[in-house]
């Protein structure tokens, strides 16, 4: 018994030390955003000598012409529809795969799973050309349309797994009461599927929020920049001058993700633990 509590104590200490090392960079980022440029380097202290807000004030002004307020609005305009359509389309497709028999189902399912491993690199150039021909470049359609067409197999798979876990008797009894398949989905299954829908939405929110590569190739005018792009622009512009502005805006850029993460952690860990995958 004593041995066991000893082991727990050692584990606890280890976890604390290791946890501190793990999040030290994030804490440092937060504290450095309040420091003066001179203090950012040359001081290990996590407590700024004096709290300076000008990193935030000046950083928020952005490129002069456009402020971070606009970049945030842009990011929301991109992320929210993408999340919404991802959840809707993945639900429909997941329901279709989980509850119905139809010709070629096995083949379709196998293809869907195999796209999980299809590298984005090999489809990105024709996709880019396609969007260019449709005149979708420099808009958020290259993000929203693929979401509406359930191209991310991860979410479809997640919902298939979830629907399979719900007893079919629910559907049967609803059918007896005269529900058609769509009513069964909306009235019976969706209320039960809330946790799965939440996890899908949260994952998609964070991935789209953090996306950089797609934004980089599809969005060209500063007026439509997302936070990621604006941040990189700030980094390029201030090669040696206003580091605390860049750091302050980095903090601002990750705050939404951290908030979402802390408020919804339950769904998070369950989401990855049940379906597996990614990061």
């Amino acid at each position, binding site marked *: 018994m004593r041995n066991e509590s000893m082991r727990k104590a050692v*584990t*606890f200490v*280890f*976890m604390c030390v290791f*946890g501190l090392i*793990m*999040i030290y*960079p*994030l804490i*440092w*980022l937060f504290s450095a955003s309040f420091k003066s440029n001179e203090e*950012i380097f*040359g001081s*290990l202290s996590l407590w700024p000598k004096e709290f300076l807000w000008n990193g935030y004030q000046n950083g928020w002004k952005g490129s002069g012409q456009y402020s971070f307020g606009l970049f945030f609005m842009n990011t929301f305009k991109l992320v929210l529809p993408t999340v919404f359509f991802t959840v809707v389309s993945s639900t429909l*497709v997941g*329901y*279709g*795969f989980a509850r*119905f028999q*139809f*010709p070629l*189902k096995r083949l*379709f399912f196998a293809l*869907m799973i195999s*796209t999980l*491993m*299809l*590298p984005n*690199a*090999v489809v990105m*150039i*024709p*996709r880019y050309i*396609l969007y260019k021909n449709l005149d979708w470049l420099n808009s958020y359609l290259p993000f929203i349309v693929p979401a509406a*067409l*359930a*191209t991310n197999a991860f979410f*479809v798979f997640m919902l298939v797994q979830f629907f399979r876990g719900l007893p079919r008797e629910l559907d049967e009894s609803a059918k007896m009461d005269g529900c058609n*398949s769509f009513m069964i989905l909306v009235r019976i299954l969706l209320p039960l599927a809330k946790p799965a829908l939440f996890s899908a939405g949260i994952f998609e929110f*964070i991935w789209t929020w*953090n996306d*950089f*590569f797609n934004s*980089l190739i599809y969005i060209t005018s500063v007026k439509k920049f997302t936070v990621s792009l604006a*941040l990189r622009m700030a*980094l390029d512009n201030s090669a040696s001058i206003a*580091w605390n502005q*860049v*750091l302050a805006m*980095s*903090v601002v*850029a*990750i705050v939404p993700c951290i908030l979402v*993460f*802390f408020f919804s952690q339950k769904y998070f860990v369950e989401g990855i*633990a049940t379906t*597996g*995958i*990614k*990061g």
Partner: protein
Amino acid sequence: MQQALKRKRSRASYIGLVYISPWIIGFLLLQLYPFLASMYYSFTSFDLINTPKWIGLKNYVDMFTKDDMFYQTLKVTLIYALIAVPAKLAFALLVAVILNVKMRSVNFFRTVYYLPSILGGSVAVAVLWRFLFMKEGVINNVTAMLHLPAVDWLGNPKLSLFTISMLNVWQFGSSMVLFLAGLKQVPGELYEVGRVDGASKLRMFFSVTLPLITPILLFNLVMQIVNAFQEFTGAFVILPDGGPLKSTYLFGMKLYDEGFKFLKMGYASALSWVLFSIILIFTLLVFRSSSYWAHYEDGGDKH
């Protein structure tokens, strides 16, 4: 009567297709078509302005015979994957094993360790990495405190790739959560048996724990390989020009440069097919070899 029943059944069987129709359209238009089209483009010279011109294998021949940077980027990407993937999985597994105790605080630590994974590919984290590992950065302040010489983490071509890989390793949280879920499935009786037999902790890990979580290891390994070979954001934001002596010029960056900077869409498509082949070979090797090391409760499909 019978006909009516049959009609009803066949209509029912098509309802499923209606539900999955968004995916079918998306698959054909945004996955299958681009997949085949990039194959076609890889045999052409295409600058987005003029129509694609068929040039046969020239892109591939040029890549292997004229483009020195191609071998460099291939080497860099392979080394990156060889550092990042094993280190990340080893870390994830180690921490998962340690966290697999019955304690209330475990959930809290799981959250803390998972946090960096959330911020994964974000530009903010890449910016942070650049600051931490600068010559005058925090990491060198720590080494100075320990009376170690300052290290040029990003400026030294021998170290820069390692520094970039560490950004990936730092995000071991999602793999860890998967391992943790797997560890919870290992029946406690097996450890009891081992304990009775007087097996050491290490021995039990290798002969009980590890074999039972190999399916999760397999899954993690494949996903991490696919991701590592395509890494872009971290390296691009930290060292936009490919680092000292192009030591961090990953394949993803080369693809971006050729395709979207120089608008050589044909050549970039050829590069993307080479990358795809490499990823495919690696994943196939992993899957093939897995019948020797991955263990399934139901016997799997070993022949």
